[in-house]
């Protein structure tokens, strides 16, 4: 890395950096992933090495749990997750898309039974790229990033 490079978002000693987020989903992702006491840094519309606009979220002091990873997979399946320890990237991984998303999103079909009853939602992945999911209950298909998280 070039010594002259200016850091655009504060470095974190330990924690998680979520990179290559679609800019339009970055704020939403930060809102969903943040816990009340989290220290979070957000960058939007940075230009990646490939010249594409992206968002970055840095969460200090912790790694994401399985629930957060699933939420992220639904919102931004192309994002990458870097684990930081002592200011160094110790692991860098792509998000893995699960076979189904259980109880993390609300069905966008206003007539779906899950919007009327207290029950667990489930979306089966029918296409990974672009991410398309189908509601297990009402059988409607949706783009992954169009769903509202619960």
């Amino acid at each position, binding site marked *: 890395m070039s010594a002259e490079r200016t850091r655009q978002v504060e470095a974190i000693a330990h924690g998680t950096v979520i990179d290559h987020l679609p800019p339009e989903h970055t704020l939403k992702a930060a809102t969903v992933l943040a816990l009340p006491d989290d220290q979070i840094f957000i960058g939007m519309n940075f230009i990646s090495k490939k010249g594409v606009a992206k968002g970055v979220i840095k969460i200090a002091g912790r790694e994401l749990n399985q629930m957060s990873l699933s939420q992220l997979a639904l919102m931004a399946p192309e994002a990458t997750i870097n684990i930081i320890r002592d200011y160094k990237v110790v692991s860098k991984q792509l998000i893995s898309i699960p076979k189904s998303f259980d109880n993390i999103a609300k*069905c966008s*079909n206003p*007539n*779906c*039974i*899950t919007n*009327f*009853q*207290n*029950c667990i939602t489930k979306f089966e992945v029918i296409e990974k790229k672009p991410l398309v999911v189908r*509601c*297990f*209950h*009402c*059988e*409607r298909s949706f783009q992954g990033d169009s769903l509202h998280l619960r």
Partner: protein
Amino acid sequence: MEFNGRHIVSLRDLSKEDLLKILSIAKNLEEKPQPDLLSGFLMATLFFEPSTRTRLSFEAAMSRLGGRVIGFADANSTSQKKGESLADTIRMAEQYADVIVMRHPHDGAARLATEVSGIPIINGGDGSNQHPTQTCLDLYTINKLFPNLIDDSDQLTVAFAGDLRYGRTVHSLFEALLHFNVKILTIAPKGLELPESFTQKATAKGITVTVVETLQEAAEQSDILYMTRLQEERFPDPVEFDHVKSSYRLNARMLKNAKESLRILHPLPRVNEIATDVDETEHAHYFPQAGNGIPVRQALLALVLGKIS
């Protein structure tokens, strides 16, 4: 796949082999009625929204097999009105009955019911999503008229007319027909055309879907003309609805050059889309089609209750 104890919720759950088994058992039950087959069994009909044909034909099917029926036909007379959850209503009903047939205004309600029910759930219609027993009876009707359907020996031309965008019976029958040797014609008002995804599914299976311009053309080119009702609420402009309604009215004159063997089906209720003079022609087959609901629903009940395997 084993039918005993199985839920019948969606056409997606039924393979070609399953469909053929249902048709074959329905045929046997129609030819050789078994008035005591389900003696001692109780069916609960939970109809959270009104229905005429589905509920009556399920009740008739169960009664004619010697079984008995409990249930309700109006959610206002149940504890749902007091705020009881669907899951609790199902848990209660399974204590009383051996099989539940339900209709509900919300999409996915029958699937949700299967998550809490220890007895088979048969979906009698969930919102605008699925109505699998209607599809089975439609398929049974077509196969009775054209037995070559299931052995794939002759290609059958099936025309779908009306609201092809939202009509659940059209979507389900369309998917079921993709298992067989068919050619499909469609005719729909602007904005209510068949979704592209259905055409793509057919093309992937080597089945052609052709759009035709007039009902007369559809009638003249097909073996089965499957008519559906246009719903006024689908049209933002009432004037547009009136205009379309009159252009989507099949009458006896349009059938003058149709094949002698053409049969017209409709899931009913029909409103304006088929003139009553069509009823007098040999092509009208929508009432016998409704009657076929009995053997088909008998077959499904006997299968899920494990009395026929």
